[in-house]
């Protein structure tokens, strides 16, 4: 057993409680019984699209365009995902083929 188990358990508890607190905060601030202010509701309507755009950027944050391989595997695989998806409209196919292509690229070519 790890000698720091007590402190580690404490850290797990703090991280778990803080995470749950963050996730619960909006629902505690704007409970179902009370009318949620209109600016917050309109924010809730536009944020999902914005956050998805943001998460795409977030996933690509470790790409360095100025160093080998210049983000080429990501670019090629992303174009494949987008092209395939606009063409076939099949979510699983776009994701599966794109990921397989990316794995081939980083393991065998770059």
């Amino acid at each position, binding site marked *: 057993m*790890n000698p*720091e188990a007590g*402190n*580690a358990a*404490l*850290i*797990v508890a*703090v*991280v*778990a409680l*803080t*995470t749950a607190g*963050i*996730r*619960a905060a*909006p*629902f505690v601030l*704007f409970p*179902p019984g009370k009318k*949620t202010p209109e*600016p*917050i*509701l309109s*924010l*809730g*309507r*536009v*944020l*999902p*699209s*914005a*956050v*998805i*755009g*943001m*998460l*795409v*950027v*977030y*996933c*690509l*944050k*470790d790409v360095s365009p100025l160093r080998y391989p210049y983000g080429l595997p*990501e670019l090629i695989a*992303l174009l494949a*995902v*987008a092209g395939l*998806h*606009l063409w076939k409209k099949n*979510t*699983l196919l*776009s*994701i*599966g083929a*794109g*990921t397989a292509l*990316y*794995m081939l690229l*980083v*393991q065998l070519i770059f």
Partner: protein
Amino acid sequence: MNRRMPALWAAFFQTIPIMTGYLFLGAAFGVLLQSKGYSWLWALLMSVFIYAGSMQFAAVGLMAGAASVVSAALLTLMVNGRHLFYGLSMLEQFRDMGRKRPYMIFSLTDETFSLLCSAKAPAGVDPKQFGFFISLLDQLYWVAGSVAGAAAGALLPFDSRGIDFVMTALFTVIFLDRWQAEGNRRPALLGAAIALICLLVFGKSVFLLPSLFLTTAVFLAFRRKLAGGGRTG
């Protein structure tokens, strides 16, 4: 006739990309945890009660470095602060979830959030059951992956380098779907653009939170203009 099965099946098909990603990322977390001397029981505990991907990786570092409670709480606020904004977007959708509501709130990760705001329940399937099963399945994948990873150690049977691209592909596909479905494309463009600028200004370890604050500020300031171009529901 059990009405839950169709919802479970529909949710299962929607969550297949996340299953792939969570099983592998979870396994990677388990392997990392195991390498620091913590058994699969710790992996189970953390994935059940914390259930936040990137923060669990960070927590391994905190545990190994015997960090203080205060720094653990602060780092969690910084890494998971973005989840505040997911809740704001789900206020209406979770409103009538009843007994399932606390779990829906607890389990709102990046990936579950992205599915909940894009996936539509098929005809004849209760949307609440459907949403609940999406959330539950996602966490089960994560728990299973992390426990298996910790138990198996570093013995992955094949070269899994690049498998994490499944998340990038998932978000890209959702982005494209929303792009084509919605009359108003400014929010999506603005979100991506602001994230890119913040990435360049703040660096990759902390840029997500400032970009969320900036996007929120811009939306609030230009609310009427941005809402124009048709209702987006």
